């Protein structure tokens, strides 16, 4: 099995690479759509600004590649910015995004005494029994660093939630596409567990 890691100049891919290497998986880190389409699973990380990320994705044909990967049914995992830009739009730079999942990314409210970015470890409650969280206790903390969060348009698209000021969606699930706002590659042993669960995930199997 080969995992493709999408390289589109959006932040540092090193931590995702080292975590996958630590798990012993064969990976290809690339910005070439054909090389990535040859992989069996896709990891779509990213840190940074939604509108510039979308610009780079389009200029390299990676937007079409991600859509194709999703539509052919192979497992895809978006991380952080990667979870936001699968939605239709982001408030950040009012960017049109990939539109694979209905919904928008919105900013945490300012002036409420909440520090933004939301940075640090926060507890995550997830859909009970979902295979991506196998072996992970309900309420386990994961590492976040972000100012925008995902607001899918339907409740059935929510994989997991956390709380910062109020409850927010911190993970999406749409068929074979899963995405987390937090960084599993920086969330200690349970983060590695989630990544490892992704490597075994069969989206067609009901749970």
């Amino acid at each position, binding site marked *: 099995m080969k995992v493709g890691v999408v390289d589109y100049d959006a*932040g*540092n891919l*090193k*931590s995702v690479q*080292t*975590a996958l*290497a*630590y798990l012993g998986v064969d990976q290809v880190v690339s910005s070439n759509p054909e090389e990535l389409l040859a992989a069996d699973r896709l990891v779509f990380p990213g*840190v*940074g*600004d939604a509108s510039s990320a979308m610009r780079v994705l389009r200029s390299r044909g990676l937007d079409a590649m991600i859509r194709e990967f999703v539509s052919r049914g192979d497992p895809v995992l978006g991380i952080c910015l990667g979870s936001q830009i699968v939605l239709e739009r982001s408030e950040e730079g009012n960017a049109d995004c990939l539109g694979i999942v209905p919904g928008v990314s919105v900013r945490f409210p*300012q002036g409420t005494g909440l*520090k*933004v*970015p*939301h*940075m*640090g*470890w*926060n*507890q995550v409650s997830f859909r009970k029994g979902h295979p991506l969280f196998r*072996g*992970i*206790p309900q*309420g*386990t*903390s994961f*590492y976040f*660093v*972000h100012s925008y969060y995902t607001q899918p348009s339907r409740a059935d698209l929510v994989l997991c939630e956390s*709380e*910062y000021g109020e409850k927010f969606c911190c993970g999406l699930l749409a068929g074979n596409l899963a995405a987390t706002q937090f*960084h599993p*590659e*920086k*969330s*200690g*042993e*349970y*983060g*590695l*567990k989630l990544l490892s669960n992704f490597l075994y995930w069969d989206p067609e199997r009901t749970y």
Partner: protein
Amino acid sequence: MLEKRLVVCLDVRDGKTTKGIKFQGNVDIGDPVEMARLYYEQGVDELVFYDITASSERRGIFIDVVERVAAQIFVPFCVGGGIGSVEDMRAVLLAGAEKISVNSQAVLNPEIINAGAAAFGAQCIVLGMDAAGDPDMKSGYRVVINGGRTPTDKDALEWALEAERRGAGEIVLNSIDADGTQDGYEIPLTRMISEAVGIPVVASGGAGKPEHLAEVLSEGKADAALVASMVHYGSYSIAEIKQHLDAAGLPVRLTYRPE
């Protein structure tokens, strides 16, 4: 609920972890990669590595440490010391660090904060600030640089606000007066800065026992507390500190590894 972070700091000189008191005299206390791995296994939330190597030609040794840490430690870590340009920042980020801390260099050239935030995002750029009590300053605290040896004309509160405006995503606030004493953090300083800025503040300097962390994370309003000696010499484990914080009613990450 967002948890209070426990951050362990390792000063690295020529590839070894070292510890000094009030920046006078350093002793090597171990291999930073092995120490970091141990803290990781004990559930540390974040690590900071400061390169205090004197000569720039030995910088490669430090980058090698960063790379080895990144390969086996899966919690965020910040790297500081001797970072004077966007290129220096890029080198440590490519080696696997999450965040970069700038201290004296930012005082001498504040534009480096803007440049770093523009290139890598505000979440990457940490302002390290050493502050010393000084009644002549408006806030009561003066920014000092070069490890506390050189006073500047900057007021600590004003500098924190300026750094935030320039794009810093976090502040590691070190009290020069408390540093090395193990008598507790400088609460009024920490509280003042933390209440004034909209970015997270990591309290540093003075930790000697778990009660000190509980105090700075509650009364001091810090988002995270940094420790060094109290864990390096085995006086307390990460778990002991966290259990104390949990018992004090502070939200901390207690579940950190599969059974």
